[in-house]
């Protein structure tokens, strides 16, 4: 028997461990230690052609909008989190989201974008901007369940899926950046599903309202997702699979 066996922890010990700053610190140290702004130090990669570069810039600009939404929302959620575990976890998520925004901005600069802020405004997907506005309304309204659902289930699951798909076709430099981001997203989407799952077990009457929020947000997120896939040139036959992980999470939570 191993000295450390996660499956032998009692439930409270497990939750305390995985929500802790200590766990987060040693986890990210495992995959970010040898990287600078998400890139492996010393690695060099060939330049992209003009069309691929332009498509990638549009995609990264919209990733920046999604990450900014998650950064602002997760920091806003700390004050309304229902327990200390969640507050501590969200503090780690804030740092993750700030790093994601930073590495995507840095990648835009690598691609020759001199003023990322104005480029983001020009290339912003209106559905994603509308999603961000709605998410921030939910946070400002201190609506914990709906905001965690919108951010950590809807947005994070879609980002996780989109980033992984993009990684499989991306140029090596972008793939390096996405690799570190995807590893963070696993924690974020898991936090959302498990926190909401526990709350819905205790308060099943909340399920109907969250299902309504889901229907409202689905259109915005799925439209964004489709347009990002278009800009990346992803083939249509693969898109159903990409959406299935999101739908699996929705089904597990009983929000169909």
């Amino acid at each position, binding site marked *: 028997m191993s000295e*450390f066996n*996660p499956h032998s922890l009692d439930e409270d010990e497990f939750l305390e461990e995985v929500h802790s700053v200590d*766990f987060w610190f040693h986890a990210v140290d*495992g995959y970010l230690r040898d990287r600078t702004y998400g890139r492996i130090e010393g690695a060099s990669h060939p330049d992209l052609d003009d069309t691929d570069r332009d498509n990638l810039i549009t995609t990264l600009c919209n990733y920046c909008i999604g990450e900014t939404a998650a950064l602002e929302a997760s920091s806003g959620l700390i004050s309304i989190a229902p327990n200390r575990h969640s507050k501590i976890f969200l503090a780690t998520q804030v740092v993750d989201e700030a790093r994601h925004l930073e590495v995507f901005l840095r990648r835009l600069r690598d691609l020759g974008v001199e003023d990322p802020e104005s480029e983001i405004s020009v290339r912003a997907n209106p559905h994603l901007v509308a999603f961000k506005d709605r998410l921030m309304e939910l946070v400002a309204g201190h609506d914990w369940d709906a905001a965690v659902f919108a951010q950590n289930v809807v947005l994070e699951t879609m980002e996780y899926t989109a980033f992984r798909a993009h990684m499989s076709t991306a140029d090596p430099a972008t793939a390096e950046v996405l690799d570190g981001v995807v590893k963070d997203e696993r*924690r974020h989407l*898991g936090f959302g599903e498990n926190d909401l799952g526990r709350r819905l077990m205790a308060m*099943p009457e909340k399920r109907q309202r969250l299902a309504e929020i889901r229907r409202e947000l689905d259109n915005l997120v799925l439209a964004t997702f489709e347009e990002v896939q278009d800009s990346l040139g992803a083939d249509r036959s693969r898109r159903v699979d990409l959406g299935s992980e999101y739908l699996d999470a929705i089904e597990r939570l*009983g929000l169909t």
Partner: protein
Amino acid sequence: MPDSDEPGMIANRIEKVRAKREAGSERRHFELDDRGFNEVPKKWRKFYRHWEGDGDTLGPNEIICPVCKVVIRSVKELRPGDRLYCMPCMSRLLVVEADDGTLTTEVVY
């Protein structure tokens, strides 16, 4: 998850699958090695690995997390009723037997 999955019902279900498990033969134990999974602190790493796609297979002590798709590993052969934790996505899981007799997991919230 259906509305009927109240905490008491889950506890009953766990008890049932545990009883079934206890009735089985003695289970094998496994020495775990570090498979390069670097998304959790070092002391927990050997309990997880990435699914390597076509050609990969699960050992009798391994199962895939339904939430984040990481392979979860145990020091013992898995049986229905076992409780596992997926640290990469913070999920608590129960091992259950699927209709086809294979083992799968359900998320326990």
